[in-house]
């Protein structure tokens, strides 16, 4: 640690400074900035090249999805929710469907559960690939970013074959899924998985054994175990701090209880370890996808015939359903009032706490050049913060 005597004192995680003193500069990072993962703004107060204070600003990406859903039939919500989160839309599709099915008392066919799990894991892999591109890019390693984004495109090819859409798959529909696996798809999938494995090995060489990445990422944005509950930290950010919390294991949904896997943890949550943990989870996802393909039930019963969706009414009730996304616990709270339209849908995106509460705390005394790397290491997606 360098000599910090010239920086303002930090009390309770908050730097004490007087902006009018002329010693500090206010810098805006975002809302349009390659180092911000979407449209949000970081209002930085810097001293020299170190951040001494950060205020986050959202409001640039509000599309009013939750309100829009109140004016749409249940079936009409499903093309909307995938747009809440671009890199991993399937979690939204799954949770909307699961909430509606739970309130309507519908049990979906077994095969639909397997196909849903498959798409969730595949989109997890795609989301992590996009993220590792951002993570490496934020530390100036654009080459790895290009590898990863290209690799993600191969997964999008798979989604295109499976669902007809590359980015917004709209595959998981209330009642099940929209179609069976196309013929020959399993071979394409295996090809892509093998390619991804090869790339992951290369990433290990060029990233985790890279002096620049190590120097910049290690000890950056340290999350201690006691911070986890205080800041509402979930997902890999918490698991890197040693807490084995994973909804897939803790409260298994779909067919996760039939799959063989262990929750991956590390004992020190800094940017380096979080990156490494997510890299490990990519391997885990590949393994899970292979397990799902091996156990995929035969037959073509993958959709429950809902009551005519134009007149589908769901009895009065409320529920909160959750799933483990790449960022952690993702949840949908849904209230139905007996009509054909949801009374209220609330989307809990894990990035909310990570970006709005945790990031300002971790940003203090971080070099301004590492801000982007820090933010990406928390894996925040502004679209799910404000929906």
């Amino acid at each position, binding site marked *: 640690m360098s000599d910090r005597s010239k920086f303002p004192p930090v009390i309770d995680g908050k730097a004490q400074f007087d902006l009018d003193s002329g010693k500090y500069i206010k810098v805006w990072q975002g809302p349009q900035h390659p180092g911000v993962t979407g449209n949000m703004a970081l209002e930085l107060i810097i001293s020299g090249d170190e951040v001494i204070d950060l205020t986050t600003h959202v409001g640039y990406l509000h599309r009013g999805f939750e309100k829009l859903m109140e004016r749409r039939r249940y079936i009409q919500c499903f093309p909307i929710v995938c747009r809440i989160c671009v890199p991993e839309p399937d979690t939204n599709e799954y949770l909307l469907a699961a909430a509606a099915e739970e309130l309507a008392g519908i049990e979906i066919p077994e095969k639909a559960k397997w196909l849903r799990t498959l798409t969730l894991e595949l989109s997890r892999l795609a989301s992590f690939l996009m993220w590792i591109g951002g993570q490496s890019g934020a530390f100036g390693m654009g080459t*790895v970013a290009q590898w990863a984004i290209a690799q993600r495109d191969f997964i999008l090819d798979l989604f295109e074959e499976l669902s007809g859409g590359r980015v*917004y798959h709209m595959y998981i529909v209330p009642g099940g899924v929209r179609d069976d696996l196309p013929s020959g798809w399993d071979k394409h999938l295996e090809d892509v998985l093998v390619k991804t494995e090869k790339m992951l090995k290369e990433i290990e060489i060029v990233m985790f054994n890279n002096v620049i990445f190590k120097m910049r990422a290690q000890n950056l944005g340290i999350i201690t175990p006691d911070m986890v509950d205080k800041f509402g930290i979930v997902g890999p950010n918490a698991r890197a701090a040693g807490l084995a919390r994973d909804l897939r294991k803790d409260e298994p949904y779909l067919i996760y209880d039939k799959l063989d896997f262990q929750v991956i943890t590390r004992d020190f949550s800094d940017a380096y370890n979080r990156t490494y943990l997510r890299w490990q989870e990519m391997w885990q996802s590949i393994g899970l996808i292979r397990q799902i393909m091996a156990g995929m039930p035969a037959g073509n019963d993958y959709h429950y015939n809902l009551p005519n969706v134009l007149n589908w009414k769901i009895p009065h009730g409320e529920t909160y359903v959750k799933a483990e996304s790449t960022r952690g616990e993702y949840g949908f709270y849904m209230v139905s009032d007996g009509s054909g339209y949801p009374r209220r849908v609330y989307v809990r995106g894990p990035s909310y706490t990570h970006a709005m509460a945790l990031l300002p705390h971790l940003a203090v005394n971080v070099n301004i050049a590492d801000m982007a790397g820090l933010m990406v290491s928390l894996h925040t997606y502004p679209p799910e913060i404000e929906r």
Partner: protein
Amino acid sequence: MKLKDYLSPFYVWKRAFDKPFTTRKPLEDRPGAPRYRGFHQNDMEKCIGCGSCEVICQNAAIDLVPVDGIETTRKDSGLRPKIDYGRCCWCALCVDICTTGSLKMSNEYIWIDSDPEVFRFVPGASEKPWKNTEAGYSQHENYTLLNLDRIDMPMLTPEDSRKSFIETVKGYSKEEAMKEAQRCVECGLCVATCPAHMDIPDYIRAIRDDNLDEALRLLYDTNPMPATCGRICTHLCEDVCSIGVKGEPLAIRWLKRYIVDQIDDTRFKAILRDEFKPNGKKVAIIGAGPGGLSAAYYLVTAGYSVTIYEASDLAGGMIRYGVPEYRMPYDQLDQDINYIKELGVEIILNNRIGKDTLFSDLYNNYDALFFSTGLNDPYKMAIDGESLPGVFSGLQILDDVTKGIKPDIGKSVAVIGGGNVAMDAARTALRLGAESTLIYRRREEDMPADTEEIHEAHAEKVKFITQAIPLRIEKTANGKLKFIWNNAEMVAKEGAARPSPIAIEGDIQSLEVDAVISAIGQGADYSFLPPEYESKIKFKRGKVIINENCQTTVPKIFAGGDIANPTADAISAIADGHNAAKGIDKFLNKK
């Protein structure tokens, strides 16, 4: 840091020799996957313009618009979806919900144009490169957002039903009716097709909402005989139901019956809120069938004083005397009639115009006249032996049974004809303990009877003999009747809508029975009209010519029902009654 950490970043150079991921010519075609959700295609012939795509589109990207060359018909609204690609989100819900399967998406995704207007287009109407592309997202098995199967109607088994006159169709329970009502996509093709233009999607919605009072009000808006039509309507609406294209049409008729069945008729007046002030004008109606009763209801609720003259001893017309009780229980018909009577309509029974009361008296004593006397004069087969004892007309048998007279038909009958009266007569004969054989000139698919009637007749073991041209009826030595026919083959004639039966020379068959029932159709009896009026009223092929207000060529005389309309069914008569009431109101208020 180790030395490895300094060297390993250079590993990326290894990739420099790999084949690049990116394509060198990005604008070259890269076809979408076989399921790709690209630009829409619509099979204009298959599409019926039901508008379900428009309703489900959560972006309001679809409008139904008229298209050149597409005509509005009973089964086609004449409209086609127009898609705005500025709004479309490619979710393909429109494809999933399409009731005909005509709408699909191609796997094409590149379309460049400097004019933004072109991106609002009607798929299928104009030539596009993807118009005939096979690949792309389309409907497939095992996944549908519609409910294509009808909720089964509880019915008596054919073994039980053929033994008695108990109503065959038991009616939906609340749960069943609500499930059936759920299937409606509210396209409205039924409304346009129904002769009475009943507000079908709305009353079905009222069933879904369990608001039966509202449903009853909607029924009476256009049809004052819902208990009747809920049972014996010819349900043209179901023939055009868009759900019927891929699945079974909604049971619209039975849903209507469900509404009336659930409500106690003593509550009708309170629910319907039929309040009116007498306007002092009088209208006479001849015939208390569906046409006359319908006209009476709408006239009395408009304030007119209405008197119906009926020749029989009970009101109901052909519904009572021409439809057997197992299809149309009399108490249900009475329920419809009683409510109309309750509003103040006077029905004078056993009063035949021309005999008991003079037509000219009515003409002179009332402000307007409406007659809907029906077709009750059975056609003759015009063959030898038709006047032998044991030969009956179908109407006669049905009429007798209604009146409680057991016709002497013995143990076996031959019913000649293929219409609803023939089916009713054949099935009534079963219930009277006789074996029924139905003999028809053409093929079964040519029979004018309702499909359900034919189906139920089969189930109750009525024997069918088709393509049989009647030749003569003979009396046998043992006192039976011998019905003799010539087998026929169907020959398509140029210019004819359907093939005609042509006798196969020498192929003569016969059947020995106790009775022969002829039910080959019926005509009108205008004997109640004095010559001076009959000469002024214009007719065409035995039917009265009326205008859109059901007015005949004599301004004060209105007519409707089977004697005027070509469909000759109850719902058309009810529609005529409604139109005549409106026409009379217009006519009398203009003066």
